[in-house]
């Protein structure tokens, strides 16, 4: 079940993220020095350069910041940036929606998908 953890996408810095998303939880990183969250997750804080950061479970709620529909893919993939409730805007896909219904600003919620590489990944549904 956790075979995907040997995929080269997973490294020591992000292992906890990958374990959690396999259980349906989206982890982002928080920083006690500047109180700002960041994504993608790093051991240090990209905002204030503090050496230490900690894992925070995101609510999974957010809104679409921007998106596009890859018209030549079958099925047509909706590539998007979703602005999480906690602050960071993350690169993702919108799933389970008719591309014609997707709108910037629409509220979305976490729905974990399996990527082509066999990785569980944080995608979002409307």
């Amino acid at each position, binding site marked *: 079940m956790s075979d995907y953890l040997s*995929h*080269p*996408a*997973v*490294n020591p*810095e*992000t292992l906890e993220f990958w374990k959690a998303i396999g259980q349906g939880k989206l982890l*982002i990183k928080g920083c006690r020095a500047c109180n*700002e*969250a*960041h*994504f*993608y997750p*790093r051991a240090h*804080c*990209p*905002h204030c350069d503090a050496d230490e950061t900690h894992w925070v479970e995101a609510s999974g709620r957010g809104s679409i*910041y*921007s*998106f*596009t*529909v*890859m*018209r*030549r*893919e079958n099925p047509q*993939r909706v*590539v*998007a*940036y979703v*602005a*999480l409730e906690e*602050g*960071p*805007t*993350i*690169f*993702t*896909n919108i799933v389970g929606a008719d591309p014609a219904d997707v709108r*910037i*600003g629409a509220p979305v919620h976490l729905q974990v998908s399996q*990527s*082509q*590489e066999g*990785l569980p*990944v944080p*995608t979002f549904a409307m």
Partner: protein
Amino acid sequence: MAAHRRAFIAGVFEHPTRKAVNKSLGQLHREVAAGALADAGLTRADVDGYFVAGDNTNLYPLSFIDYLGLRPKVIGATDTGGSAYVTHVGQAIEAIEAGKCEVALITLAGKPRTGGAAADPVPDWPLPDVPFEQPFGRAVINTYAMCAARHAYEYGTTSEQLAWVKVAFSHHAQHNPNAMLRNVVTVDEVLESPMIADPLHRLDCCVVSDGGGAIVVVSEAVAKALARPLVAVRGYGDAVKHQAGGKVDLTYTATRWSAAVAYEEAGVTAADIRYASVYDSFTITVLEQIEDLGFAEKGKGGAFVADGGLISGVGRLAVNTDGGGLCNNHPANRGGMTKIIEAVRQLRGEAHPAVQVPGLELALVNATGGWLGTRHAAATMILETK
């Protein structure tokens, strides 16, 4: 106007091919190198600096130094994608000013059209961003398309306005016998072309072409002995913009920062510029850069480019009079090289008479490289005739 920099662009060459069926990658590098050196009135023996971008994991610079038979004292291989060649000129100038070399050669070649090479590299999983983007189908076009979608959402930029960028460059390309697409197109034709990644249509995308180009940058001492008209670099700047840990803003580019440095060093503003080469990987790339270069207020780029705003002799600013990457040439999926070359043609008065800006003394070159919506570089250069 006094040049701030003590090095000059003395030679340029754009390979005439757009489909190099019977040539190797090495031959293309060799032919553009020879072309630019001949244009400058120099030979291989004069070259003591060499710059090339490409797949650094394969030690690309060593392969081409070997293939070309060079003995450089200065080498550079900064790879930021399409903007790398503007950066290379900047780095060549610094090396020359520091006395490290006197004749720097910069080459670009590639065969994406016949070689079928994708614009997107093979996933390199150890890169920190790749695991968080590749599984979602990150591709060059979707990172640009999301910029266009957000720009439209915030500022009301329309697909018609984006289409005008392509229309303008097609007006220029009709005069370029080497251009890959020489037919003048209309706004409707752009909008009727297939949607690739909303809101970008096929004709919002640059061409895929084989070929290349080269530039020779020389010291003042070498320049004085040459017969060619010299082009001085008056100012340049580099910048990189990324997701900043999740603080994503797709409505502006790193050009905002690279241009500020270049303008300050050159002591000029956008109001002084009548010709600009602007890397047009997609129509949205030009529109955002036009704003970030200060030609239009943020959000007003659509109105600036509409109705022929970028057509030489029609609009306030002539842009990409060779037809740009949208119509002329996009060798190796990298647009910065051909942008410099057309700006040099304009400053020498060697552009096609139908698109030549009369009495030009200053020109601007701007290129972005990488993925506009995830992480990209920008390089801005102000050139002048000497």
